[in-house]
């Protein structure tokens, strides 16, 4: 760079001008001609303020905005409570069943009979979570009241809901005593006894008390096994309480758990008629369903609802990879091999897709073979129907063989559908998990209510546990407040369900468990809880560098320079002083 004299001169004059303007400026600056003049304190502070304000914007505005916009919102969840539920540490379900005893005897006799029976019953019971509690029908019966009961057997219906079973003692003079009869369509056990039994009710060896206790134990044996199995498979905590289930019972229960559909408030039933030819092209399914299915579905209405649709598919051929049926000379029938049955449904061609309605679909397929291949049966067993676990059932309807030469049926009447409907209703019963015993349907239904309530409690707890796990393991997924709200609701209803169970209100428990499960599912499957896809650190650098580089370099350099100057000035001042 050339340094002409005049340039220096002009600089000098300028500096002197500044010096003249600011008389407080030290006159030294004007003297050194080679260096730029020392700037005034005001301009120095002005520059520092400018730099500082840039920094202030970056730190006070930029940083919080960056933090706010890139932070993942995670609502607080009661993780400890959620894992505790999942691990079964809180809310152990217990099942105290209330059993009312109604006896036309003196109250104190009834009382002592109940006490004795309860004692024997407690000795028999090995599964502490499931208890049978005997109690007199209240208010205690007087002679008048018992007459009243005889006239109107439904007097107790008001508090029936909480009583699982009513034992009605009936004195008889004839026949073998004691004997019992379980009403098939009401939760009532009739016990016939001879009056001589009453005299000894207070002793533990009373034959009547022992009889009643054994009867009750037998009636609830299957339920106990089922609940014990459920507790043992879903939470390890309970395992110590489980009484020994025989091997075959455990195997049967396991088979059942494979078969039974998961609980849903609404199931969708699809009844389909498949035929490889053009006949039958119609079926009187509506009437058949009304007559043969409706009562069954109605009786389940306290537990689940059902929606139904039906369809007819003509020219529905079996899958090409399905081995064709073989003719069996001995049975005079076409037979299907047992091991091929799972491929019988031609999933690729038959329209059995799930419905658009809520809830799982249960399929019932009725297959009418063509005339030339009828009757069509399963080899060896000769059965014509089978159940597909968690899917539905298949039945083959062979048209009556007498009309071999007659024109094939064009329509199936309600009567012709009856056997198939019977098969389907049996299959539905086993798919829904209704227990086989005892003989009384209301008792079986109430057993199912308890089992379903318990399984819903477990399922909701395990969903909450899963959510807690996911929350802790994946910090990158956002958790909105709705999730926390759902979790709170679920926990609340779980607690309520367990309380209701403890107090023996099983229908209420099922309601609460259903809500809890629904809320837990809602919380887990919250739509916005899909994390940002994985971003490696080098990608972050690549994103931020072009943005921050041009901003950060001048900011940093200016700050450094200022600090350096200040430090130098400070040192100079110290040296001077």
């Amino acid at each position, binding site marked *: 760079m050339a340094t002409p004299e005049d340039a220096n001169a002009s600089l000098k004059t300028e500096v002197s001008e500044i010096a003249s303007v600011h008389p407080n400026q030290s006159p030294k600056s004007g003297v050194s001609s080679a260096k730029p003049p020392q700037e005034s304190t005001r301009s120095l502070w002005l520059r520092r303020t400018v730099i500082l304000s840039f920094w202030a914007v970056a730190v006070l505005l930029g940083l919080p905005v960056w933090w706010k916009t890139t932070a993942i919102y995670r609502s607080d969840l009661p993780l400890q409570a959620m894992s505790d539920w999942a691990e079964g540490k809180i809310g152990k379900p217990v099942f105290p069943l209330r059993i009312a005893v109604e006896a036309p005897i003196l109250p104190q006799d009834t009382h002592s009979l109940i006490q004795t029976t309860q004692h024997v019953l407690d000795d028999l019971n090995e599964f502490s979570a499931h208890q049978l509690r005997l109690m007199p029908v209240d208010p205690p019966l007087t002679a008048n009241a018992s007459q009243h009961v005889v006239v109107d057997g439904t007097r107790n219906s008001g508090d029936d809901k909480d009583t699982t079973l009513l034992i009605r003692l009936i004195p008889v003079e004839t026949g073998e005593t004691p004997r019992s009869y379980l009403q098939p369509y009401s939760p009532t056990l009739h016990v016939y006894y001879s009056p001589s039994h009453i005299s000894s009710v207070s002793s533990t060896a009373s034959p009547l008390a022992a009889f009643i206790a054994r009867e009750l134990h037998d009636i609830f044996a299957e339920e106990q096994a089922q609940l014990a199995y459920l507790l043992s498979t879903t939470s390890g905590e309970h395992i110590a309480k489980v009484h020994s289930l025989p091997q075959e019972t455990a195997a049967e229960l396991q088979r059942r758990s494979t078969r039974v559909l998961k609980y849903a408030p609404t199931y969708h039933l699809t009844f389909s008629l498949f035929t490889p030819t053009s006949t039958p092209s119609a079926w009187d399914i509506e009437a058949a369903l009304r007559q043969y299915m409706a009562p069954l579905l109605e009786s389940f209405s306290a537990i689940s609802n059902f929606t139904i649709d039906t369809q007819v598919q003509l020219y529905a051929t079996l899958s090409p*990879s399905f081995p064709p049926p073989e003719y069996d000379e001995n049975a005079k029938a076409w037979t299907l091999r047992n091991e091929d049955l799972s491929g019988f449904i031609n999933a690729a061609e038959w329209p059995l897709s799930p419905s658009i309605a809520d809830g799982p679909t249960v399929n019932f397929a009725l297959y009418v073979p063509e005339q030339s291949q009828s009757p069509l049966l399963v080899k060896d067993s000769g059965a014509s129907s089978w159940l597909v676990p968690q899917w539905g059932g298949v039945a083959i309807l062979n048209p009556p063989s007498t009309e071999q030469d007659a024109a094939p049926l064009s329509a199936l009447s309600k009567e012709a559908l009856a056997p198939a409907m019977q098969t389907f209703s*049996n299959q539905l019963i086993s798919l829904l998990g209704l227990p086989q015993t005892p003989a009384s349907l209301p008792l079986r239904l109430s057993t199912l209510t308890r089992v379903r309530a318990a399984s819903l409690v477990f399922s909701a707890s395990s969903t909450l546990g899963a959510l807690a796990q996911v929350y802790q393991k994946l910090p990158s997924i956002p958790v909105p407040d709705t999730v926390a709200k759902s979790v709170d609701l679920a926990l609340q209803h779980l607690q309520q369900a367990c309380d209701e169970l403890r107090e023996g209100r099983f229908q209420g428990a099922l309601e609460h468990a259903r809500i809890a499960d629904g809320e837990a599912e809602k919380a887990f499957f919250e739509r916005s809880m899909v994390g940002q896809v994985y971003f490696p650190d080098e990608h972050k650098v690549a994103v931020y560098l072009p943005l921050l580089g041009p901003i950060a370099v001048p900011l940093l350099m200016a700050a450094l320079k200022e600090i350096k100057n200040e430090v130098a000035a400070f040192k100079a001042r110290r040296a001077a002083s």
Partner: protein
Amino acid sequence: MKFSSALLPLLAAPLAAAEHTSNWAVLVGTSRFWFNYRHLANVLSLYRTVKRLGIPDSQIIMMLPDDMACNPRNSFPGTVYNNADRALDLYGDNIEVDYRGYEVTVENFIRLMTDRVPENMPRSKRLMTDERSNILVYMTGHGGNEFLKFQDAEEISAYDLADAFSQMWEKKRYHELLFMIDTCQANTMYSKFYSPNIIATGSSEIDQSSYSHHADSDVGVAVIDRYTYYNLEFLENKVRDPTSELTLGELFDSYDEDLIHSRPGFRYDLFNGGADAARSRRIVDFFGNVQNVEVDDGAKRNETQWREELEAIEKMIEEAKRRHNESLNVRPQALNVMEEVQHSERQHTIQKEGAVRMDEELSWKKQVIGGAALLGCAGIWAASSWLESL
């Protein structure tokens, strides 16, 4: 020990419950454009195989980012072939593509796997599995070290896949899972998995490409990838029907590095029981839909008895209804009606309220923000004028 002997069958039970009741398949192609014809042919070939072996359409989720059959450059419109002999039209007349075109994204894939889908998503586009479902996940496209490209626009990393599977495991959304991937450096994609009961296999090791098998000169592009081709060859020739007893081990052993031109990888360590158990799983446990049906015992129940039972049930229900009504002094019916009305009203109002409230909230928020901004501006202006006046 008294306990141990009693509990033995119970403890053994969960282990013995190694039975699945449904099979699902998730088949994903991730690349667009005509020159990636082979990736879509890969997916369609697998689709055809699982369908042939019995998985219904409702349990197959297929993601195809492009429509090769209708591509203007396709000289055989309406068809897709995976072989130069063009013997088999993969498109056929009955295929169901669940996610197509721009619906095939990383986000949608993760949503599908974790079932975090919008409320109105049709059931056919959801993976509605439970702890008794076996899932086959097949992916193909262009990938690299620990990533697979989706549609040239984004990529899914091995970490995302692993996290998705772990969420599925936590929520008990699968029983066993077979992960299969045909892409370059495919084996890196399953290296980050950490959830149990997954068998994984891929076409090529890290730094290895996965090659196409052959091109059809009339179609003009490669029609299938090598790894998929040899998988299909085995499945088509050996696994002829859903009752096949061939195992995954036999399938994996059939891979020939000289033919595939890359080294396929396997991962068994996550599987319960290790390599032996994984290799002994039947192929149709993942590619087919085989359930243990329960044949009803031939002994027919008494039909007349059944009819009587039905009638009795009907009577019982009517009786219960009557009693219910009587015991509550006609209140129940009215109450029911009221409840229903209330219920429907409530639902109605809730829906309406929700929409309105959201709008209100939004507009309130907006107003507050706007007001604050205005106030802020005014404040700044006032402050600056004050400063200036000093």
